[in-house]
């Protein structure tokens, strides 16, 4: 099931905001202002919104579009163009491959690993879970419940143990048993804590000390995240060579527009989207569906 059908139950076609834009036949300054507002309310950010709209204005002028629907279509296609074209596949090829999950506290790293592990195991891959969050109380317990559901082994250490060594052990465990994939959890950390960011850089290095290769480092970002998301992405990319974004909690009223700026500024594509708490509520990112949902209205179930 794709993002569109997943969000279908939560989102209607157009928000009331854009409904007023659409109700007016003429494209005037008010139209542009309301489009700008819609973008800002989706957390796309002022500067990205301004950039987008100036590009849309140019195209509208060039193409001689004079109806509101036409303008909206151009805005959507500009957004889709900007998000499109990226490689969103999750790379394998290591012996084993390690997918490392990083992000600030509470974004949904453990839950994402749980869902993804279930999916990969169901696809016939031999998966090992690495409980690299040794800081948060009971984080390993949480992950082990997901590992059990997936029928996959989990390697963990004591609370407060060195996360690098836990992940290293998991990689060796996987290598010894011929498992192809290690899904490595890490503790949530605020990107301004340089000691914790150094720790993460070490985790990334040590994960490749043995036989494994880190083929994906996925930054998990919560859809409610505001403009700070860009700073987060920049900092995590710097220390851990982030290869993709997982956008979680997109089934709520938040739009996750900050990922537009993240992909624009840092060239890091969104690869997966979390749309619920269930085991299969993790779907591939689809730019067209995402852009549609960006402007859709919430419908209370």
């Amino acid at each position, binding site marked *: 099931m794709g993002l569109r059908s997943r969000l279908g139950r939560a989102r209607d076609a157009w928000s009331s905001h854009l409904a007023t834009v659409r109700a007016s036949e003429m494209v005037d300054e008010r139209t542009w202002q309301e489009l700008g507002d819609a973008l800002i309310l989706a957390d796309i950010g002022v500067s990205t919104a301004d950039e987008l709209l100036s590009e849309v204005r140019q195209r509208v002028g060039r193409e001689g579009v004079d109806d509101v629907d036409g303008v909206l279509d151009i805005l959507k296609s500009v957004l889709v163009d900007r998000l499109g074209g990226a490689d969103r596949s999750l790379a394998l090829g290591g012996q084993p491959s390690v997918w490392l999950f990083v992000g600030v506290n509470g974004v949904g790293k453990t839950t994402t690993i749980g869902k993804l592990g279930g999916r990969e195991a169901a696809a016939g891959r031999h998966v090992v879970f690495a409980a690299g969050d040794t800081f948060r109380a009971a984080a390993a317990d949480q992950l082990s419940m997901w590992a059990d559901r997936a029928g996959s082994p989990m390697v963990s250490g004591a609370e407060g143990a060195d996360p690098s060594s836990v992940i290293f052990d998991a990689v060796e465990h996987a290598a010894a048993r011929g498992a192809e994939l290690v899904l490595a959890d890490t503790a949530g950390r605020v990107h301004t804590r340089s000691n914790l960011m150094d720790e993460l850089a070490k985790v990334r290095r040590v994960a490749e000390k043995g036989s494994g290769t880190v083929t994906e480092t996925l930054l998990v970002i919560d859809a409610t995240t505001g403009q700070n998301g860009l700073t987060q992405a920049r900092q995590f990319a710097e220390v851990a060579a982030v290869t993709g974004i997982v956008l979680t909690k997109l089934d709520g009223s938040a739009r996750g527009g900050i990922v537009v700026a993240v992909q624009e500024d840092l060239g890091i594509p969104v690869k997966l989207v979390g749309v619920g708490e269930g085991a299969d509520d993790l779907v591939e990112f689809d730019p067209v569906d995402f852009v549609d949902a960006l402007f859709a209205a919430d*419908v209370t179930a």
Partner: protein
Amino acid sequence: MFESLSSRFEGVLKRIRGKGRLGPEDVEEFLGELRVALLEADVHLSVVRDFQDRIRERAVGVEVSGALNPGQQVVKIVLEELTGVLGGETHRLTYASRPPTVVLLAGLQGSGKTTTAAKLARWFKAQGRNPMLIGADLQRPAAVEQLRTLAARIDVPVFSEATDPVSVARAGLAEARSLGRDVVICDTAGRLAIDDDLMAEVADVAAVLEPHHTLLVIDAMIGQDAVNTAEAFHARLSLDAVVLTKLDGDARGGAALSVKEVVGRPIAFASTGEALEDFEPFHPDRLASRILGMGDVETLIEKAEETFDQAEAEAAAQRLMDGTFTLDDFLEQLKALRKMGPLSNVMGMVPGMAQQMKGVETEVDERRIDRIEGIIHSMTPGERTDPDVIDGSRRARIAAGSGTQPNEINQLVRQFREMRKMMKQMGGSGGPGRRGRKAKGGKGRKGGGGRTTARGPAPIDKKKGLSLPGLGDPAGGGFGGLDLPGGGPTDRM
């Protein structure tokens, strides 16, 4: 926190503060910049508009009046409005006349409810209460385990059972009564504001608990959705206050403004770190001054008092402000500061520090501090008093002694000089030490400006005025700082 909003404000205000009279176009330019600044800080669009309107109304046509020039008056207006939006006073949790006092926590997934529950329990314990926790998050795997682990660290009992949240709440409350606990804190599962079933469920939990305080836990990093979330939870639960978490990051936390403005409920507590003690009552007045780059003097002083004694603090602050401190003092400062918690938290509280430190040293890394300590320990007393005597051979000796590189010693000495110079300038314009100590004085000096704090009015040296180190030019040129006559703008804070 809020550094970026501060610096943005400073840039805008710098441009208009020297003007003798503000035309509508000056005000509009200012409002435009203010809009971008607030939106980048994640303040909700509608709140930004209201904020702009209120300032426009008051700022257009402002003329020189008394000691304040128009630019200064706009500063005053912004400060007043900001304080107004954030809430005029600190929210206090009252206790029920018939215990237990019941606190219900609700919020989105990942906002930090479970950690907040434990932090709140620790806080109540420190107030001399006997809290009990109820783990009603049966949704997230191991959430109750997490709560139990945290509660064990602070020796607080937890009630939970594998039934359903409403039953857990009911049984938990009965348990608290039978155990004679006087405060009950109930953790709940994270839920989306648009999930009708789960929102109904938390309302059922609230109906059973009849909480005295219903707190919405909100992540400081949240964007425009803060308003939807707060409104939806408020509609269901009739919130009493908000807890703002993860303020230790660099998120600008505009949600604090939005939530207060839209649901009219104050922020009661702020969480500023991962440790259970990184949690404190929220002071809106302090946050408003912080947004404007004035620094959070009161919090700094309070923290300092908790950690080392007042006399020591005063003496150290005095030397710091006089610019006569040595590397030995610096070492002492580092040790004292480290006792106060993560350095990045402390630095943010020093007025203007966020700004001043920009070009100097913004990265406060605990491990680097270890190296700095090592370097200073390897110096002779003479070198510590006057680092200028350090030449090539001394440098090599110190490097060998501390296991560092000679260029690190150069760097330290250079930064030390910079810092001494900067502190001296700040001291000269009425920096934190002075104001902080006077804040203890209690009574305002006659004729001085009135900076009324939670601890009583604190006088401001009239000659020097209330300098906003981030706003004013520390060297004293140009605007120099706000000269506030009696009854100045900070009265409301």
